[in-house]
C-alpha cells in the first residue's frame, strides 16, 4: 500500500519534471530574423503604471506597423528593481537599445554609460531649433549630449481653494511679476493655513502642534538639492564648483534655506516634519489630493486624471520669490538615451528620432505627463491640456520655464549617488531633529562631500 503510494509519487515527480522541461522550451518565442529589434527599457522614472504600459504598447504597435526594418518593444521594469535588471543586462552583453524616459538625475547617475548623440545629430544634420532652449541644454555636458529632448516638467504651486476660502485668505497671485508674492508672504499664508485637530491655525496660542490635520505648505518630498535650489546660491542646484573639485554645500543661501526649512518644520509648524510626511504617505500617499497640504510645490508630473475628481477646488500659482528677490523654479527634463554597450545603435537613433518627432511627441508626452519639448506643438498641447484640466490656469505652467534652475538640481556631479546620499542624510536630520544646528550641519556636510570629491579626483586625475 505505502510502496504503491511512493511509486505513484515518484511517477508524478517525473511527469512534472517533463512538463517543466516542455513548457520551458515551448515558451521561447521564435524571433523574426530580418528585423532589427529595439528594446526600450522603461523603469528608471515614470512609465510602469498599468495605464502607461498599455499606452506604450500602442506606441510600439504604431511604430511597428509603419516600419519594416525595425521592431520596437517596450520592456517594463518596476522602479525598485530597474537598476539591478539594467546592470545585469549590460553585464550580460545584452544592453537594451534605448533607456527612458530618463530624468536629468538618472542621466547624471549613469553618466559614463550613455552614448553621446552629437555625432548622430551632425551626421543627419538634425534640426534642434524647434526644441525649447533649456530642454536641449539641461541634459548636455561638454563631453556628453545624452539624447534628443522629449519633454519638460516645470514646477509651480498647487493650492487648495477651499482651504483658502475656509481661512478667509485671498488666493496666491498668478502674476509672475507680482513681487509681493515672496517667501515672507508664503510663510504668512502657510501659517494661517496650518490647522490642528480643533481647527486652530498655527498663529493661535491654542495651536496643538502634535495634532496637525492640515499643513500650509510643503515641497514635493524631493531631495536636498531639489529643496535648496530655490534659495539662489551661485550654483543654483549644484553642490560643487563648476570644475567639480570643490564642495559648495555651506553657501550663505543654502544655510538660509536649511534654517528656513528647519524653523518652518519645527518652530512655525507650517511644513510637515518627517513623521508628518510619513503619516501623509501612509495615509493616502497624496499630500495635496488627500487634503493634508494646502499649498504643494510640485511639477507637471503630479498632474494625473485623478486631480479632476478631488473633493475640493484647486488651481496652480507661480512659485514665490526667494529671500534675495529672485524666483528659481525647479525643472525636470526627460529624454531617451542609448547605452554605449548597446548593439544596433543606428536603429536606436532612428527610434529616438521617431519618439520625439512632432507627430508623436504629444502622444509620448501624454503617457509620461511631460510638457512636449517642441515649440511647434505648444498650441496643440495647450488645447489638450485644457481638455484634460479645464479648471486650472495653464499660463502658469509655461511661464515657469523662464525661471528654471540652471545648473539644475539633478545635474551631474562626480559620484552622484554618494554625494546625494550624504546631502539627503542631512536633509533627514533637518526634518527629524528639532534641536539641530543647521549651520554646523551644513559645514559638516560640506566636508563629507569634499571627501567624496577628493577621493574621486585621486582615482581619476
Amino acid at each position, binding site marked *: 500500500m505505502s510502496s504503491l503510494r511512493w511509486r505513484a509519487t515518484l511517477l508524478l515527480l517525473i511527469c512534472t519534471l517533463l512538463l517543466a522541461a516542455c513548457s520551458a522550451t515551448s515558451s521561447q518565442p521564435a524571433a523574426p530574423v530580418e528585423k532589427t529589434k529595439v528594446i526600450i527599457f522603461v523603469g528608471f522614472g515614470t512609465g510602469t503604471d498599468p495605464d502607461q504600459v498599455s499606452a506604450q504598447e500602442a506606441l510600439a504597435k504604431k511604430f511597428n506597423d509603419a516600419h519594416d526594418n525595425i521592431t520596437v518593444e517596450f520592456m517594463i521594469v*518596476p522602479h525598485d528593481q530597474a537598476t539591478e535588471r539594467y546592470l545585469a543586462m549590460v553585464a550580460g552583453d545584452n544592453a537594451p537599445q534605448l533607456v527612458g524616459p530618463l530624468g536629468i538625475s538618472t542621466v547624471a547617475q549613469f553618466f559614463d554609460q550613455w552614448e553621446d548623440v552629437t555625432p548622430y545629430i551632425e551626421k543627419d544634420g538634425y534640426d534642434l531649433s524647434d526644441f525649447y532652449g533649456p530642454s536641449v541644454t539641461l541634459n548636455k555636458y561638454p563631453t556628453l549630449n545624452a539624447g534628443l529632448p522629449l519633454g519638460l516638467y516645470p514646477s509651480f504651486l498647487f493650492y487648495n481653494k477651499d482651504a483658502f476660502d475656509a481661512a478667509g485668505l485671498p488666493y496666491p497671485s498668478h502674476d509672475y511679476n507680482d513681487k509681493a508674492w515672496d517667501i515672507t508672504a508664503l510663510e504668512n499664508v502657510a501659517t494661517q493655513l496650518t490647522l490642528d485637530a480643533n481647527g486652530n491655525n498655527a498663529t493661535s496660542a491654542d495651536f496643538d502642534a502634535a495634532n496637525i490635520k492640515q499643513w500650509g505648505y510643503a515641497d514635493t518630498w524631493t531631495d536636498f538639492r531639489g529643496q535648496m535650489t530655490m534659495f539662489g546660491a551661485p550654483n543654483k542646484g549644484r553642490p560643487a564648483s563648476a570644475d567639480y573639485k570643490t564642495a559648495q554645500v555651506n553657501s550663505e543661501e543654502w544655510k538660509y534655506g536649511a534654517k528656513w526649512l528647519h524653523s518652518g518644520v519645527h518652530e512655525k509648524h507650517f511644513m510637515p516634519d518627517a513623521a508628518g510626511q510619513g503619516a501623509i504617505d501612509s495615509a493616502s500617499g497624496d499630500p495635496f489630493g488627500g487634503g493634508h497640504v494646502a499649498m504643494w510645490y510640485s511639477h507637471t508630473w503630479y498632474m494625473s486624471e485623478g486631480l479632476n475628481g478631488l473633493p475640493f477646488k484647486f488651481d496652480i500659482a507661480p512659485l514665490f520669490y526667494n529671500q534675495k528677490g529672485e524666483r528659481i523654479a525647479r525643472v525636470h527634463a526627460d529624454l531617451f538615451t542609448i547605452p554605449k554597450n548597446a548593439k544596433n545603435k543606428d536603429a536606436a537613433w532612428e527610434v529616438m528620432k521617431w519618439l520625439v518627432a512632432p507627430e508623436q511627441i504629444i502622444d509620448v508626452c501624454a503617457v509620461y505627463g511631460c510638457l512636449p519639448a517642441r515649440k511647434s506643438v505648444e498650441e496643440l498641447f495647450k488645447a489638450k491640456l485644457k481638455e484634460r484640466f479645464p479648471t486650472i490656469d495653464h499660463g502658469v505652467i509655461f511661464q515657469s520655464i523662464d525661471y528654471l534652475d540652471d545648473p539644475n538640481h539633478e545635474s551631474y556631479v562626480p559620484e552622484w549617488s554618494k554625494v546625494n546620499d550624504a546631502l539627503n542624510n542631512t536633509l533627514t536630520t533637518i526634518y527629524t531633529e528639532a534641536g539641530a544646528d543647521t549651520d554646523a550641519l551644513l559645514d559638516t556636510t560640506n566636508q563629507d562631500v569634499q571627501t567624496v570629491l577628493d577621493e574621486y579626483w585621486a582615482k581619476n586625475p
Partner: protein
Amino acid sequence: MALLQHTWRRLQGSMRVIEMAAAGLTTLLLAAGAIVIMIPLAFMISTSLKDPAQIRSDANALLPRTLVMQPYNGDTYPVYTVTTPTGTKTMLMLKKAPGGKAIFVDPQQPETQLTLPLAAQQAQYTLDIHWENYPDAMQAMPFVQYLINTLLVTFVGMAGMLFSSSLVAYGFSRFRARWLDLLFLVLLSTIMLPSQVRLIPIYVFFQELGWVNTLLPLIVPQFFANAYDVFLLRQFIMTIPLELDDAARIDGANPLEILLYIILPQARPALVSVAIFHFLYAWNDFYEPLIFLHTKDQWTLAVGLQTFDSLYTINTHLIMAVSVLMIVPPIVLFFLAQRIFTQGVVFSGVKG
C-alpha cells in the same frame, strides 16, 4: 481512608479547575495576540474595497465608506449630525469658515444658517464597498497567464525541492564519512554570502545557457537541493531513532528503501513544513523573477503585483486587492496541510 479519598477527589477536582483556567487564560492570550495580528490584515482587506478617493482623503477609516451627500440649491453638500444649542439636528455643511468653523444649513429651514466648530460635528457616512476593485485589479494584468506561470514555478519547483532535499538530508544525517561534516558546512555557507553580489554572475551564466526570459532559472535549481530545506530535514531525521533503521536493515532493506519506508513517513511533519515554506517562497518571490523574466508572458503574480507599485501614481486599492487575492491560496493550503501536519507521529514497539 475515606477522608484521604475525599481529599484526593477534591484535589483532582481543583486540578481540573486549574487546567480549565489555564486553557481559558491561554485562549484569552491567543485572542489578544490574534487581534494584534489581524489589524494590518483588516486594513489590507478594507483598503482593497475602498474607493481611491477615500484612500486619498479618509485613509485611516477601517470601513470602506463615503460621505452622505444631499442636493441643495443646485449643488450637493455633505450631511452632518450637528449639535446646536437647541439639540442635535441633521444639517448640510455648506462651507468651511475661518477658525475651524463651518456653515451649516437645514434644507427645511434655509433661512437659518449656523456657524459652528467643525470638529465638534459628526459627518454622516454610508458603507461604500467597491468589490469591482478585484476584477479591475485582475484585468489590469493578464491574471490567468501570471497564475499559470506562478503555479508552474511553485509546484514543479516544490516537487524538485522535496525530491532532492530529502535525498541530500538523508545523506547528511544517516551516514558516517570523513568529509560529510565539512561538506554540510559548505552547504550552509552557500546562504551566507549576500545574494546581491552573486546576481550579476548568475544572470550572465543563465544568459549563456539561454535560460533568461524562461522559467527555467526559477525551477531547475530547485532540483538540486538547498541549504534551508536540507538543514531542516536533517534536523528532523536526526531525531528519528536509529533502531528503526537497524530493524529494517536486518530485514534486508537497502539504504534507499530505509529512506522511503522508514525515514520519510516519520519525517512527514518536516516534509510538510518545508513544502509550505517553499510554496510561500516561490509564491511571493518577485525579486529573482523580475531579474530573469523580461517579458510579460513569463511573469508571475508576485511580479505583476510589484508592477502596481509605481513611482508617481497611486494604485493602493489595486495593490491591496491583489495582495488579498494572493494570500487566499496559501491560507487554504496551510489550513488543509495542518491535517497531515498535526496527526503526529507515534513510535510504536521501539524502545531506546
